[in-house]
């Protein structure tokens, strides 16, 4: 119910319609993303959860046009961005930003933090009068002191670098920020800090998030709605409560069964011996065969299936 209220209040921001992407090598064709569709409303967090190679990162890169989709269309604020030329796209870039997984590789090692932030601020439509003061404000909003402005990236820890990446992403005043595994390279306690920061920033500025992760617990904390992805397809989509409270698809259930927690610690590994390995493979095999028919569990909950 609360979900639908959100829909009424917030307009549709991003609309993905049946996008596909294949990578062709000499020997084979790999369908990385296969007929994926989803919507993101402004101010909400939509997460794609799945394992390596499921196509979640490829999807994210197509949304921000670091890759071009083979088929399908992407609408941002009502207009199609899949057909934009590079020049037209450049003008829209500031509305959509991305934060990558590896905090050690996403900052130019030869630039000071102030320059890295100024660079992002400079693409805003309305430029602030004092760029350095604005950079200072951005750093503070991600929990770093102004004394850090004249440092180089290598002087920071992984968690701090990820904060700088986030400051850079919000510096352009975007509508949508894509996070590609933003905390999976970070330690547990630092993870909590960064996730908490992301939620706070969202509440303060009203960003929409597209959140990509393999980690169910992180996704659970962050998301309003979740798409579970396997083998290039979104096999199940629903609100957080629907996915976690009432998982329908075999693969979603498998993912839940695979995550160790502290409570099931004793039984966990014991139940996952060879017998269940075979069931896993059976489930995974079935998922691969499924067609493009969506069955609706309820208004917001979809499951990919062939029955």
């Amino acid at each position, binding site marked *: 119910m609360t979900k639908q209220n959100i829909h009424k209040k917030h307009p549709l921001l991003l609309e993905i319609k049946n996008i596909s992407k294949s990578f062709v090598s000499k020997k084979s064709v790999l369908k990385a993303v296969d007929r994926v569709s989803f919507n993101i409303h402004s101010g909400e967090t939509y997460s794609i959860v799945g*394992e*390596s190679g499921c196509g979640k990162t490829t999807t994210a890169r197509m949304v*921000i046009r*670091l890759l071009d989709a083979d088929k399908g269309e992407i609408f941002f604020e009502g207009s199609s961005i899949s057909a934009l030329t590079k020049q037209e*796209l*450049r*003008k*829209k*870039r*500031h509305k959509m*930003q*991305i934060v*990558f*997984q*590896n905090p050690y*590789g*996403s*900052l*130019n*090692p030869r*630039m000071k933090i102030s320059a890295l932030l100024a*660079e*992002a601020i400079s*693409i805003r439509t309305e430029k602030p009068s004092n760029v350095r003061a604005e950079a200072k404000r951005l750093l503070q909003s991600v929990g770093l002191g102004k004394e850090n402005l004249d440092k180089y990236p290598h002087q920071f*820890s*992984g*968690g*701090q670098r990820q904060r700088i*990446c986030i400051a*850079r992403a919000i510096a352009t005043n975007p509508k949508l920020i894509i996070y590609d595994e933003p905390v999976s390279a970070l*330690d*547990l*306690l*630092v993870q*909590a*800090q960064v996730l908490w920061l992301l939620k706070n920033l969202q509440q303060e500025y009203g960003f929409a998030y597209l959140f990509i992760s*393999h980690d*169910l*617990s992180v996704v*659970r*904390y962050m998301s309003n709605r979740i798409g579970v992805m396997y083998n290039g397809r979104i096999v199940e989509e629903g609100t957080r409560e629907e996915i*976690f409270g009432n998982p329908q698809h075999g693969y979603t259930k498998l*993912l839940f*069964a*695979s*995550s*160790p*927690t*502290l409570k099931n*610690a004793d039984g*966990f*590994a*014991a*139940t*996952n*011996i*060879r017998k*269940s*390995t075979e069931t*896993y493979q059976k489930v995974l095999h079935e998922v691969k065969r499924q067609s493009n028919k969506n069955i609706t569990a309820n208004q917001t909950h979809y499951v990919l299936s062939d029955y």
Partner: protein
Amino acid sequence: MYNTIFKIRKKTNVYILTGLSLITIVFIFSIFGSLISEFDPLRTAPAMRLTAPGSIHWMGTDDVGRDIFTRVIYGIKISMVIGFVVTLISGIVGTIAGISAAYYPVTSKVIMRIVDSIMAFPTIILAIVLAGILGAGMRNIIIALAISYFPMIARVVRNATAEILATEYIESVVVLGKSNTYIIFRYILPNIASPLIVQLTYTFAMAILNESILSFLGVGIQIPTPSLGAMVSDGRNYINTAPWIITFPGLVISWIVLSLDLMGDGLRELLDPKRRHSKLRFKKMAILQSAYKATETDMQDLLKIENLTVVAADKHDTHEIVRDVSFAIRNGETMGIIGESGCGKSITAMSILKLTEPNIHIAKGYIYWGDICLSELPESRLRTICGKEIGTIFQEPMTSLNPVFTIEQQLSAPIRLHLGLKKADIHQRCIRLLQDVGIKHPEKTLKSYPHELSGGMCQRVVIAMAISCDPRLLIADEPTTALDVTIQAQILGILKELIRTNHMALLIISHDMGVIASLSENITVMYGGEIVEQDTRDSIIERAAHPYTEKLINAAEELYDGADELTIVRGSVPRPGEHIIGCKFAPRCTFSTRRCHTERPPLIRKKYGKGTVRCWKYI
């Protein structure tokens, strides 16, 4: 640009210093030399021909009586000008060609074909041919040399640029919608500066050397202009009667080229830290697989670590990265070490078998394997002792396997060494091992190469290798961190079953509380290189005593249980080498008192149970 590069590592480099001072001497001579010498480099004095070096003619005179010292000084000038201009032209052309080749795939094909075909000729031959076609003279030599050298630069630049284009920081600036020109000047050029500068230094040296060769061959600088190469050429006829004519210019050429090469070598070392650490993991694996049949020990503790302190040394100083760590593992027991990155958990495990990087070594403490003291053994004996008894699994399955051998070759090697089985028996054992780790088609897998298998499959093979000789202890360092959750669940299940059926002891290291909890009976919590708490799994999870353990467990539980609010622990782990006098966790701890900041708490026994904790709260 130069400034930022040199700031990175301030250490003065002996090659650069030597090279720089040598070339400065040459420079000073070429600039001020003409003031000292009163001779004209071109004026002939037949009366003075072939005078030996003396007080008037310091380097003697040549066959027409010209002063060699003066001519050498002018020769240096010409060489330097040629070297500089050639480097400048080939540098600019090469950089433009290299960057455009990396940037635009279509251009790349055209440019790289041209570059390849030029590089197919030996540089000097090409330069001779070009100089021959263009005719002698300074301008033509420069053109010929620039054409010969720009391909090498283009290639270096293209490779460096391609490497940078693949990084995430390039994507993050593309997303900002910045133009290509901006990206090239702000991102590409500063980041390719190091390899480029090194290459330019070599080009400078080679240009000077090759100018000399061309002039020597008569297609270079024309007589009577004093060029070092032309002077060597002249002197060749008098090598027996007047050796000084050839000696001095020759020495100067060697001097210049040597000093520039030294500078190049120094720069390469200074700017490229990657060159030093290139040890591959599978080399370390090989160490573990050497033959030895250990005697049975009936000591209760299988592995015992006592007051282990490990230090890391760099050029400036040494600092403790593991301090005063003690624990014991009994036969068949499982121990998990948990901690965040940099807490010393992996270093502790690696130290057991001395697999740490060469600059890291044990400063204090002992490691016992039964009644053998591993930490005192020379490395050669350690290898023979550990081969069979301790199996190891590392995080990255791909780097633990050798890509050029089949799975069967790699799996059977330790079995043959340690167990001395017959060929057919070895094959049977390999098949059984693969079945044990849950591989469905062992025959097929045995014939495969590592790259043909998925990450999960590779990790299974690595586990099979680790247990191939029935070790009594398995050390697993983040065995599932690189794997997907569904695969992780399977691997954890396999490990659990293997431990039970083979009665192996396990030392597992992980940052993931769920992984540690599902496999270990006892848990050691490390923070900042120290043990902060040690107890049974249930005590740690349900009644964590140390504030850090408590925060860690709490954070894990909140995430696993889907809490709406996360409790935030401010600050970050201490950096290795950061000096903290009191408790290492005190700066982040909500309970810390003044004592916590000034005095280091000892590890004390808990009031209830067998566990230990390092916190002033309990004293």
